[in-house]
């Protein structure tokens, strides 16, 4: 299952992010339409991006491909203050990894990254933007990335819904008997 930049832009449409030039929600009931030439205004620093991609590869299904471009486009398109908070928490997580494993998160294998997050209690933490480290990681990293994934049509499709809640996917899909109808 290939994630694309277009998927990231679609996820941004769900957030109403203003940082994407060209992304727009049509007003004719057909739902979100993302211009192919839409482009985030901001860039994401390499080290922060590497951490975020590593977390995304941990919390996304293993079938997801193209995670790096998806995450980069999504995070770049977020409002500046939201992106800055995400990158700050990513840096905190990375510092923890370096402390525990003498390596950045991005250099850990998937199983070790998974163990790091669980040992921090992120799996059972209440998401809190300003809470303890595990709560902030849950809010700013894990839930932000899961939101981007499962509120996008491509992520939703893995579960069986191409127009998930929070995605402005129009008023056609609810009438169809299956996702296949749309493709056929």
């Amino acid at each position, binding site marked *: 299952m290939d994630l694309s930049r277009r998927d990231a832009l679609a996820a941004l449409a769900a957030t109403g992010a203003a940082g994407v030039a060209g992304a727009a929600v049509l007003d004719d009931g057909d739902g979100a339409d993302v211009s192919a030439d839409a482009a985030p205004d901001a860039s994401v620093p390499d080290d922060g991006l590497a951490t975020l991609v590593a977390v995304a590869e941990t919390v996304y299904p293993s079938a997801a491909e193209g995670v790096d471009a998806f995450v980069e486009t999504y995070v770049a398109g977020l409002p500046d203050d939201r992106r800055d908070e995400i990158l700050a928490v990513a840096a905190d997580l990375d510092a923890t990894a370096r402390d525990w494993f003498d390596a950045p998160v991005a250099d850990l294998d998937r199983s070790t990254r998974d163990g790091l997050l669980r040992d921090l209690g992120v799996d059972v933490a209440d998401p809190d933007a300003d809470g303890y480290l595990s709560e902030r990681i849950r809010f700013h990293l894990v839930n932000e990335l899961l939101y981007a994934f499962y509120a996008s049509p491509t992520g939703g499709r893995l579960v069986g819904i191409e127009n998930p809640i929070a*995605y402005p996917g129009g*008023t056609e899909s609810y009438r169809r008997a299956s996702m296949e109808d749309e493709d056929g």
Partner: protein
Amino acid sequence: MAEDRSPDPDADVCVVGAGPAGAIVAARLAEAGHDAVVLDAGPRFDLDDRTDQLDAHVRPGLEGLWGMGGERDAYTSSGPRGYPLNDARVKGVGGSTLHWQGMVMRLHERDFELRSRHGVGTDWPIDYADLRPYYAAAERELSVAGADDNPFAPPREEPFPLPAFPPSHSDAIFAEACESLGLPTHSVPNARNSEPADGASACVGYGTCKPVCPSGAKYTAERHVARAEAAGARVVDRAPVQRLVHDDSGKRIEAAIYATPGGEEYRQDADAVVLACGGVENVRLLLLSASDAHPDGLANSSGLVGRYFMDHCFAGVGGRIDRPTRQNHVGFNTTECHALYDGTDPLPGVKLEFLNYAGPSPVIDALHADDWGDSLLDSLRESYGTHLAVGGLVEQFPRAENRITLDRSTTDDHGNPVPDVHWSLGPETRRAIERVNEVQRSILAELGAEIDWVVGPDATGPAYHHMGTTRMGTDPESSVVAPDCRAHDCENLWIAGSSVFPTGGAMNPTLTIAALSCRLADRLEDWL
């Protein structure tokens, strides 16, 4: 610069409350050339913040969707049934339409004649024919999307302003089962744009209608506030009215006394006052305005202000079938069944709703899960996809013991006693819920569904429709307002909204609220 919240020196009418009841009155009067002031206890909500509010709804860890709660909104609930009042309302410009779902049906003819037809409840002092042209006006005001396909609906004379939303995939599943059970299904009138209208887009399917529509396709009373302001009305937010004051005769309201965030207290004089702050706060304000001339509260010579509080009770059955049901694409319903509404088994009005949002949403489940990766995907696939549910609303007959009073032991942020909600179910409502559950079970059984949950008389809750507490009637001893919605006891005090409903039927009340507001505006315009 701080917003000017000082009073208008030359107001014809002061409207208290900027929800649909008040905003429609204000818009129509302002457009007719009258000087209208609207005071609302809550804030204006910026349309640009709606996607952030969607985030707050979907993502755990974010709060403050509509800002309800806290000292401003304190209340108590003393009845046999707890009442979650602050889940049931929004204070602010737009009122509870900010978080409503947007279903807009006309009451049926029987709803106006319950006592005459069945010997229960009471009759309205007006009938369906009186309100019929105002229903049409209300449908235009709310740009209702609907279809004339409901064989049980009362007579109508003109098409809906916008085409209905077509039925969902799950509606088609239900329709077949219902047909075989003799329960014809039909469309749902929605106050939601099926096409661009009123300067707002068509629905784009965010799926979060309740509690927030980021696209603006769902009607909120902000549309009428904007119309009122465009016509010259003044709308003041965060201006909770503390009390109404009257002249020496006690017959005429002189002014509304309101507070502001800066701590000032102002007096808004007006030729007429329209109370439009809901079935709970209308009562509280009348009771807070007690005086020597009105020792039991304003407009309360009958002693009925606050009594006969009614809501609609939810009944539902949900389960799973062995095929995709395609739920949670949209947050509104497209099919209902009113086949049982006018009958006598049960006698209380009931309607069936076929939900388009049964079962979990994968994205919301994912954000609450204690797992991730492939195992999360596996659990989401297991939990999503085959759910179905039939909900329904059940009528409560008016009961004098169900009432809103002041709890003088608790005060709000201005030192005023808070409302106390005393709510209970009567035996006829319990029986009606049980009967609806039987029908709902039979529908799911027809589909071969495995039933997961039932909301019956013990688990039922309110639909957040506050009705009946300033009932309309011709006799000042048995009602609070006259048929024109003017208080029996005060010649220039009018009450808009569902608090004037003598009975509530089982139809969502906002279209009737809007129709009565259109009618009230006509009457008040003649009076001014």
